[in-house]
């Protein structure tokens, strides 16, 4: 049974209504059938495949490590790097606060293709604050450009910063001019360099 065409058998196996998946002609079936032998044990993740990953160690302050994932379309995802000092605090991060000084970054709604209302921020502008049990750390933008969105799920689920800071726990998305990127690009470390610097694997 296991050796047979699973899709063709699926309706019977699951005991539910037949599906269109069973109705492929032979040719289509042959085209979509993967070759198990050629598949890598672990494929590159969506982040690895779609972004160039850069790191800023000790950004403005010791231990303030951040990442910038740059998509070929010019957008940058910013978040906390694995060795960020806040992640090492006891109990990890407990809250995130997008209220920095004059503005609350979570209250600005960017709209339209032209990204109306998007704030123009500098590399060293404060993006948000992350709080641990008894400390607060300021997170910086790291890139100069328009702030398109902040990850508002973090306000309800700050634990995402502890569990998957490199994916669902990202902090914000920026859009920057290609020329501005070229200016700051060389200041960042590559993933390899960062890994070696912090001794993580």
């Amino acid at each position: 049974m296991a050796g047979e065409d699973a899709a063709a058998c699926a309706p019977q196996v699951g005991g539910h209504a037949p599906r269109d998946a069973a109705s492929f002609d032979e040719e289509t079936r042959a085209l979509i059938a993967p070759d198990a032998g050629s598949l890598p044990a672990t494929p590159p993740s969506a982040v690895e495949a779609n972004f160039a990953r850069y790191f800023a160690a000790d950004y403005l302050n010791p231990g303030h490590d951040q990442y910038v994932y740059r998509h070929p379309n010019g957008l940058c995802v910013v978040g906390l790097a694995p060795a960020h000092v806040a992640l090492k605090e006891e109990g990890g991060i407990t809250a995130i606060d997008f209220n920095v000084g004059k503005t609350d970054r979570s209250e600005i709604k960017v709209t339209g293709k032209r990204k109306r209302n998007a704030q123009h921020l500098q590399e060293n502008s404060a993006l948000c604050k992350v709080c641990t049990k008894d400390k607060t750390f300021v997170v910086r933008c790291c890139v100069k450009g328009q702030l398109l969105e902040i990850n508002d799920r973090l306000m309800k689920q700050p634990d995402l910063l502890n569990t998957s800071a490199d994916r669902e726990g990202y902090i914000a998305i920026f859009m920057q001019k290609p020329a501005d990127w070229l200016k700051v690009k060389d200041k960042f470390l590559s993933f390899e360099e960062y890994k070696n610097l912090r001794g993580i694997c």
Partner: protein
Amino acid sequence: MTATHAAAAESDAEARSILERAAAASFPPLHAVHHLLSVGVCVRCIFRMFGAFSHACSCASLTVPFFHSFLEEHDDSAKGGSCSCLSTDGACCSICFGILLPTCHQDEGVVPFDDISRIDIITSMVSQAIQREGYQIDGFSLEISLPAVVAANERAIRLYMKEKYGSENWFKDEIFSQQTMSVKEGLRLLIVPSLEKQLGVKHGNNSFRIRLTYTHDDASLKLKRLLPNDSNRKRKAESREGNDTRRNSTYDDKQTLSETDSFIHKSLEGIQDQEFCSLFKLPPEKVSKPCHLVISFLRPAIYIGGRYLKLSRNVSQSCWIIDDERMGEASVEEIIKESVCAISRGDGYKFHAAGREDIDVRMLGSGRPFLIEVLNVRSIPSAIEIQQISDKINSSEKKHVRIRNLKLVDNEIWAMMREGEAEKQKQYAALIWTSSPLTDDDLQKISVIKDMEIVQNTPVRVLHRRSPLERKRIIHWMEIEKVEGSSNYYLLHLCTQAGTYIKEFVHGDLGRTNPSIGSMLRCRAEILQLDVTDVKMDLLQ
């Protein structure tokens, strides 16, 4: 020689009978007719203005000298050897500028054609152009565009006649005041039978259009300068538009001319006869340069539709070039266009498809509906030719694209394609990897889901060009199939609402698509390959 003489004699006789009939039925006193002739109005325009115009007026013998001698015989005032109407200075008709009685071919200098009916020259130019362009036609319709000056000329002559003969009794009859045949109608009357004969097809409400565009730049510009307010209004409009219009001088000239024409038309309508007389020289000056004629053809776009399969992950749907660098080795659009272009000749080809897929996504199964719009096509492709287009693509060496159900379709299908695009369902097969092996319970859990709503924040991948929004989409059903010989790879079959981002639905796009395959199975899910296996539309099935 004798035959020619005989023909000439016959023609003379015919011309005489036409003149006699016209003189008896509709001409005013012949001295007025003669006067028109002497101020440079052509024979055909005279017939036209007095309501005596017919196809017979194309008779080759109906020339000015012939007309003059006829008048000499019947009217004393025309007697005398030297008469201004006989001067052979080659001036065009002071109304139609030679449109009804062409005197020369504009592009090849002056060609006298006394032996043939002069309208036939235009006809043979049209016929040659049709052959040169390779049009195959089963009929034609005719569009004629004349410069506004012609209407102004006609009005000037009418007013001149009114001024001169207004007090005479014959003028007070309706003869001259009534609406007579326009130059355009006159030309149509002469040229349509000639075109029908030459082209061997009938004139009618055909989609193949022959367009005769007559222009007379010198006279148009001269007339424009005479009109009041013109220059002021023009200049104001120009200064408002800024300098842009002036930079490109050829464009500007053309623009100005077409604007001039509609402006003249409008201005003339608004001018009273009295003002008209004060502005224009009556009768109009003789002009030696005839109208310039441009012959063009137009056939409405035809549509060839079908479904395409894209079998390569390195071929985009449309030509995709970023910073002069080509993405992918080819495109569906170019491959199809090239084959259509090789078999069906047109001025342009436009590719339209019902939705699209990413460059690295194959389009399999039923294929995706598409249309090729062929502009100004030379001949309507036959069923055999359509088959040839299809065969050409399907037998190509690289096999990137395959075509199904290619056929000639009417333009209603256009609306049907756009309509179905939003609500259509699409089926996919995705090769996915999960960070932990899935259990039978997991597979079962996925397969019982029906019409589940998901929320997709605009994917990061397209956020640079699309609006940041939460988009709600429906996943109609899913089925996960194990890939033999590997514990973490699966084939995910799913059917979704149009516009669902499948890749993001699998990996979750940093949590921005929710739920996702990863979040539902509580593991990390990655997508390696994606194929569209069905675009569910009735269209071109």
